[in-house]
């Protein structure tokens, strides 16, 4: 069994999906989802420890040898990503039980969990596979289920948000498949490792840069890189709380992973940066994303939308680190994948608790909540401090490495932008803090604190921010090794 773990990681959740649909009732469906999430989390820990001890795992599906068979290839990079996805799922799924019961009609909940588990399976599949077309398939699995999940939101604007995401996401996926097709034409293989070997032999032909470009645009759409981010604010704002927390912490991270895999492993850093000058495109866009999206967040009156714009800015940080194309820069970017999942996960879970009790996530609904929901708001403040980058939080560690990477290359503007972004984050986080603690309640009825089922997952993520902020050697170590693998540096 343990030899088959790489494929079981994806297959078990995939099988759990129709199981959830068959249960017909909310609680059993949730139980199936818990099973899938728990399984994925345990397996991802096992896989990460195996990779750290023994190096890259290569698994041949059906024992067909690559490049003809599909290979699942797990190295430090995707072991880390898989841990992030399954970890977030393991925390959000217990939370989802009560949150979803409040926000979604009971008859639809089993189907909700079906889509939820499918999304999880899809994201995990993208992360472990070593075949590029397989990536596309899992990408679409996760995307379609995400569209369905987002459309479950209570507000009717969830429908238009989901539709907009569908259109833009499908364009992105189609661009990716065009890129894959063009690569296949030139090399005759779909296996990532094989492509990495064959591409240098044919990249004089203009097809390969075209494939590169299509892939770049397609992946950028999926990870909401400015200016292809337009689907994100609405999608995050109107989706059900648990869905937002899950997707905000995983979907864009997996898209960043795809970027890393395609451009560093398959095309190779030399081609991507020295020939195609990807850094000249990514870095300015990342900087613009950080500044403009943080500024946009400041002016929002809907807290979920505020956090959505903040997420786009934080993705800018990850891309900024990656575009520096150095080991430190990549370490910073990969580290921020993990850290941001912790931060935003905690923040969205806290906002979800507010939604649970007050029925609204507008800033005005949060007036006086500092007194009425002290634990929830304390969680929000602590996660917010991590977003700002206060020492002893994961946000600080990310910022440290980002600034270090910028200074190492002598690029002061990068360091300055990272720090300015922190200050802007302080402004929009403090906006919420002031409303919660300084204003008197304008609602008629006081509300009670959120139930323990919501508080516990929230606080687990928030405390994880501080634990990994104080003992960062595990996450930094893995990120560093992953960066070395991607840059092709001998360890």
């Amino acid at each position, binding site marked *: 069994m343990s030899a088959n773990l790489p494929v079981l990681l994806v297959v078990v959740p995939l099988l759990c999906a129709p199981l959830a649909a068959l249960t017909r009732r909310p609680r059993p469906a949730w139980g199936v989802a818990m099973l899938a999430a728990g399984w994925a989390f345990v397996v991802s820990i096992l896989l990460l420890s195996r990779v750290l001890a023994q190096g890259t795992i290569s698994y041949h599906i059906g024992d067909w040898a690559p490049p003809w068979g599909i290979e699942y290839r797990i190295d430090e990079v995707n072991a880390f990503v898989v841990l992030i996805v399954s970890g977030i799922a393991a925390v959000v799924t217990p939370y989802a039980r009560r949150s979803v019961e409040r926000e979604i009609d009971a008859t639809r909940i089993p189907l909700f969990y079906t889509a939820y588990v499918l999304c999880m399976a899809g994201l995990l599949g993208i992360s472990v596979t070593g075949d590029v*077309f397989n990536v*596309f*398939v899992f990408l*679409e699995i996760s995307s*379609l289920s995400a*569209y*369905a999940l987002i*459309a479950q939101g209570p507000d*009717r*604007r969830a*429908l*238009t948000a*989901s*539709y907009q995401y*569908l*259109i833009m996401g*499908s*364009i992105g*996926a*189609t661009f990716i*498949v*065009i890129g894959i*097709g063009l690569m*296949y*034409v030139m090399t005759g293989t*779909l296996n990532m490792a094989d492509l990495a070997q064959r591409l240098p032999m044919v990249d004089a032909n203009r097809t390969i840069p075209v494939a590169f470009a299509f892939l770049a645009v397609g992946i950028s759409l999926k990870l909401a890189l400015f200016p292809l981010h337009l689907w994100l604010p609405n999608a995050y704002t109107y989706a059900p709380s648990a869905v937002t927390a899950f997707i905000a912490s995983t979907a864009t991270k997996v898209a960043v992973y795809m970027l890393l895999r395609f451009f560093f492993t398959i095309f190779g850093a030399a081609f991507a940066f020295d020939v195609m000058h990807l850094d000249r495109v990514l870095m300015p866009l990342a900087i613009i994303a950080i500044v403009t999206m943080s500024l946009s967040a400041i002016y929002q009156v809907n807290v979920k939308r505020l956090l959505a714009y903040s997420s786009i800015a934080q993705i800018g940080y990850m891309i900024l680190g990656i575009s520096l194309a150095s080991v430190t820069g990549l370490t910073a970017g990969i580290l921020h994948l993990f850290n941001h999942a912790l931060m935003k996960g905690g923040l969205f879970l806290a906002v979800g608790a507010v939604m649970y009790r007050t029925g609204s996530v507008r800033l005005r609904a949060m007036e006086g909540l500092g007194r009425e929901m002290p634990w929830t708001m304390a969680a929000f403040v602590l996660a917010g401090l991590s977003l700002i980058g206060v020492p002893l939080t994961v946000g600080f560690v990310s910022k440290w490495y980002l600034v270090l990477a910028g200074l190492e290359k002598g690029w002061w503007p990068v360091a300055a932008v990272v720090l300015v972004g922190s200050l802007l984050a302080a402004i929009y986080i403090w906006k919420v803090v002031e409303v919660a603690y300084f204003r008197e309640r304008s609602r008629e009825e006081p509300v009670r604190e959120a139930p323990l089922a919501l508080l516990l997952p929230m606080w687990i993520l928030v405390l994880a921010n501080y634990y990994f902020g104080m003992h960062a050697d595990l996450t930094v170590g893995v990120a560093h090794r992953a960066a070395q693998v991607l840059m092709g540096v001998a360890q």
Partner: protein
Amino acid sequence: MRILGYYNYWVVIFLMMVGFYTLISRGNLVKKLVGLTVFQTSVFILYISMGKIEGGTAPIIMQGQHVVYSNPIPHVLILTGIVVGIATTAVGLSLVVRIKEAYGTIEEDEIHVQDDVL
């Protein structure tokens, strides 16, 4: 003559542009989906036409004969792609039905007006 020899790519480009343009310029939600489908179809044709080998026949093994086959892999990939396309269209259309129920219209402009009023 070489340019005409690449006629399959021209078809692909034509369909891709028609589909993309429809997608972007039309305000009717169903028409957008039509555009998306045409766009995705162009990609299918790209793959399939890439797999064709001159003088190649359908990739079904005939025992004992040395035959040139067209590449079957793109066909396999496209079958998957078609299924994905169908699923996307299905999800998209079901969203359109729900939107019609919620807003009373499937024209993008009218929906925006209703949302801004909120």
